[in-house]
Each structure stands twice: as structure tokens, then as C-alpha cells.
């Protein structure tokens, strides 16, 4: 049987995901409609966990970038790229799903308010990071990319301040009372999103490790040939 032959964590993660995601979707489906938002509030069950995870991943990427700038070890650069890739995937979803929500709730696809503006700037900066990082494998490229990751990470505390301190954001925290079924759906969604993120990080790590290995071998061959 496959579970006796293969004890790789990815196998367990795939199994956990195949259970957690349908359960979370079922809980979201049976959760009651919110009184003022109606059905559009169901986007919140994916939007909120993925927003938190994207910020954590992008912050993690920036921390690995700092570690790379200090230690100059390739493993930190690899972890930074991986973390930012998955973080950007979720940030893209958060931006688009937020826009869909805003269209229904605020009657506009986009509102230039502090939080959304900082999120967009952060997304663009990390986007530049990914483009730069894919453009080459040299130390200079890695160094400049790491600086861009730091620039992007500056926005993370600004997003937090814009919501909790400035009180300018329409997207303010607090005041929302959730039904127990809604809380349950949110909890299950959080667990499912954490599991999917872990799976993507594990898969991405396997691939990027092999990619780095073959790049190194290719460089050695090129050196020998020259």
C-alpha cells in the first residue's frame, strides 16, 4: 500500500488537504447569510485567512532576504523567493476578491483608501522582486531582489497602522459579531488555508532545491568547457 511505501510529508499533506478543504467548503456553504452583506460575505471566509497568510509569507520572505544580505547563503535566497511566490499568490487573490466584495458593499471596484493603497504598493513591489529574481541567478540579482523584498515589507506595518491607528480605513477591524456557525466556518477555512499553504511551500521547496542543484551543475559544466 502507498502509505507504507511512501512516508514523505507531502503525501500526508495531500491527504490532509483532501479532507480539510471539502470540510471547510461544506462549513462555509452551511454557514448562515450575514444580515447586512448577504451572500457576498461568504468571500470573507477565504479573503481573511489568505490575507493574514499572505502578509505572514511576505514578511517571512523579507526576513529571509535580510538573512541573505547578512550571511550571503543561497538557502536564504531560495526560502525568500519561495515564501514571496506563495505570498504573492494569496495577495493576488486578496486584491481581486476584495475588489469583488467592494463592488457589492461599497458600489465601487476600487477605493483609494490607505489600506488598499498600501496593499497595492506592496503587491507591486513584491511583483518587481519576482520579476527581478527570475531575470538571473547571479549574486547581484539576488542582492537587488532582497532589497526590493525589504522595500515591499515596509508596507506591512503601514497596512496595520492604517487600520488600527489612523482610523481612516473603511476596512476597519472590530465590531463584527459572528454567529457560532460562522465562527466555525472561519476556523475550518483557516485550517484548510494553512494546510494548502504548507503543501504549496513543501512542493515549491522540492522543486526549487532541484532547480538550484541543476543550475549549479550547469554552471560547473560551463566553467569546465570554457
Amino acid at each position, binding site marked *: 500500500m502507498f502509505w507504507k511505501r511512501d512516508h514523505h510529508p507531502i503525501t500526508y499533506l495531500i491527504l490532509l488537504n483532501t479532507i480539510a478543504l471539502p470540510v471547510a467548503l461544506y462549513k462555509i456553504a452551511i454557514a448562515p447569510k450575514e444580515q447586512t*452583506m448577504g451572500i457576498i460575505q461568504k468571500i470573507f471566509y477565504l*479573503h481573511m485567512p489568505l490575507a493574514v497568510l499572505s502578509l505572514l509569507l511576505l514578511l517571512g520572505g523579507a526576513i529571509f532576504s535580510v538573512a541573505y544580505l547578512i550571511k550571503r547563503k543561497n538557502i536564504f535566497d531560495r526560502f525568500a523567493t519561495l515564501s514571496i511566490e506563495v505570498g504573492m499568490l494569496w495577495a493576488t487573490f486578496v486584491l481581486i476578491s476584495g475588489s469583488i466584495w467592494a463592488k457589492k458593499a461599497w458600489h465601487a471596484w476600487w477605493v483609494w483608501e490607505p489600506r488598499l493603497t498600501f496593499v497595492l504598493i506592496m503587491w507591486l513591489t513584491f511583483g518587481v522582486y519576482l520579476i527581478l529574481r527570475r531575470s538571473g541567478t547571479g549574486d547581484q540579482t539576488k542582492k537587488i531582489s532582497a532589497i526590493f523584498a525589504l522595500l515591499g515589507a515596509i508596507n506591512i506595518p503601514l497596512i496595520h497602522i492604517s487600520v488600527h491607528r489612523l482610523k481612516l480605513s473603511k476596512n476597519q477591524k472590530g465590531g463584527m459579531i459572528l454567529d457560532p456557525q460562522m465562527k466555525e466556518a472561519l476556523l475550518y477555512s483557516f485550517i484548510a488555508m494553512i494546510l494548502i499553504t504548507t503543501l504549496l511551500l513543501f512542493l515549491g521547496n522540492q522543486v526549487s532545491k532541484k*532547480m538550484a542543484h541543476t543550475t549549479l551543475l550547469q554552471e560547473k559544466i560551463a566553467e569546465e568547457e570554457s
Partner: protein
Amino acid sequence: MNDNIEMVTKINTIEQIYTPVTLHKSTIQGGETMVIVAYSLFFLLIMGYLLLLTRRVVQIKKRMNRINKYIKHGESNE
């Protein structure tokens, strides 16, 4: 006595105004399509990332083939 009557009247008025709104009505109607679009987008993004990883795996295999050919070529020359 008069004060008590006034209080009851005020409370009744507040209940009449707020009860129907808070218990039964949604202010935003519809949006099912948008919810479906958002959830589809989530799965599309995951599929997109998995496709990207698959593309990289193919790239790694191509590279490994080239490296193996180089090693075999070197061995045959020796």
C-alpha cells in the same frame, strides 16, 4: 406615572423601527455569481501555481538529460 407611560412608548417605537431591519432583511441582495467567481479564482490560482511548478520540473528533467549526456560524453572520451 406619566414618566413611566412615556418610557414604554419610546421603547415600543424603537422596537418597531429596528426589529424588522436587524432580524430579517439583508441590505445587499444577490451576489451569488460574484461569490462563485471569487471561489473559482482561488482554485484557478492554485492550479496556476501547480502548473508553474510542473513547468519547472520539466525544465529540471531537460537540464538533467543535458548534464547526463555531458557526463557520458566525458566518460567515453576518457
